[in-house]
């Protein structure tokens, strides 16, 4: 499996990663190599095998639907890059 430079740009966009143009060729090569390694998987017939999403056969634990967390907003917002009146600030989205 080999990726093109356009593929790399598309994947980087999907992952919301800025990649400099100078770095595109090395990502193209390295990601293609990794996909080449991964390609070994296709040699095995797994048509009858149930996918294993998780190492332990366990059901999702449920709890009562009630508030158990205390309010930590101030603590958690203290580490945010930009906050005002309890809100996280980002560049303007709506005109």
């Amino acid at each position, binding site marked *: 499996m080999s*990726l093109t430079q356009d*593929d*790399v740009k598309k*994947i*980087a*966009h*999907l*992952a*919301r*990663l*800025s*990649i400099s143009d100078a770095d595109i060729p090395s*990502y193209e090569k*390295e*990601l293609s*190599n*990794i*996909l080449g*390694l*991964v*390609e*070994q*998987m*296709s040699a*095995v017939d*797994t048509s009858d*095998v*149930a*996918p*294993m*999403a*998780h*190492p*332990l056969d*366990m059901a*999702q*634990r449920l*709890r009562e639907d009630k508030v158990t967390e205390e309010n*930590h907003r101030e*603590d*958690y917002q*203290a*580490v*945010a*890059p*930009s906050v005002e009146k309890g809100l*996280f600030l*980002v*560049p*303007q*989205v709506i005109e």
Partner: protein
Amino acid sequence: MMHNKTLSELSAALKAGEFSSTELTQSYLSRIADLDPLVNGYITVSKEPALAAAKLADQQIAAGEAGPLTGIPLAQKDIFCTKGVKTSCGSKMLDSFISPYDATVIENFNKAGSVMLGKTNMDEFAMGSSNETSFYGAVKNPWNTAKVPGGSSGGSAAVVAARLAPASTGTDTGGSIRQPASLCGITGLKPTYGRVSRYGMIAFASSLDQAGPMTRTAEDAALMLNCMAGFDARDSTSVERDVPDYTKDLSNSLEGLTIGLPKEYFGEGLDALVGKAVEEAIAEYKKLGATVKEISLPNTHLAVPTYYVVAPAECSSNLSRFDGVRFGYRCAEPVDLEDLYKRSRGEGFGAEVKRRIMIGTYALSAGYYDAYYIKAQQLRRLISDDFKRAFEEVDVIMGPTAPEPAFGLGEKSNDPITMYLSDIYTIAANLAGLPGMSVPAGFVNDMPVGLQIIGNYFDEARLLNVAHRYQQVTDWHQRVPTQFK
């Protein structure tokens, strides 16, 4: 010398009043100041909180309220959130992140009265096998500072080997406790998936990540695991199951133990001298009364390809939280929201992390999901079934932890694929969720070699027993690198 004592020896000495926790902590802090620059094992040394915790521990000891870890200094991998102390995960992304809360593992150690010396260096977001992807520079192997310590818990391994902490914690997603333990000549245990809480442990691949102890001896690992293991309602995959006293069965006889040797772990790719060291360790086990049986884990060769779909897929999802909005790095002067996301992530993450996010994003994207992610999950079952069959016949599985001793700094850092193959013997246990250990088993060209012991689900007590009996008849785990004696 305080720094050459094991956890159980330190615990006894503290209780007997040979020295105080404050003296012990100060002694370690001064060793770290003198010697850590040689290995770069710590990202943060938490001197003031450590001395405060030691003072408190001394009061508890004086009041006769001390437990086995009261007053014991420990190093914590910088992947665990520590309230009020920088938690970087080895990344520029979290260089300024002071965690507002403690991970459950940290909370457990605090309750036990132990003293945190600092946070250890690691591959960025635990993605690496050499500790060279850290934003804070590579860690060096205490046995030869031109070589890597392994990764991703390379700082945790190096500080224990260099006697800059009596014990540390690590996390293991594909070998990140066992491989550095092997390369640095210490004891490391990755418990069964779900045994130790993942709450507050920065997530890499959530169906694989597991925390465990990194120590000089199996006995110390048992003491640490007693404190780390247990159910935690705050981790949705934590297992509700009693925690045994892991020190209780350490000395059990190995008479009648059946050891499985997977033929796939002794074939092509294994350094011949490493293979010889492992065979000599197996010979010791025969003397201890164990019997040996050749087994086959036929899908072993698929573990690395499978892992490099599952782990990146989960990482691409987990690391989406680093968006420059709520915490962590934010780029300067973003022009719009997309620019804020893209540049914060592009500038905040290093190359290996970006590679893995992109592989995962690709594997999960429309049109490729079945061919990559579902396929990998199917192979994951085949790999797991290999172990299930093997454990019908044997009690533990043994083999090398890593295919070779520590390699040179820079030797593999430009070739991701070669680097990935460092974990060829450790990854399968993560995919299956099984517990595994690495125990010092000799030296090749003056560098340590580890014996890997893989156990059945929740069989940590047996692994520790098997490792402890070997350490009673060998002294590999007692060797100290010359510069750090």
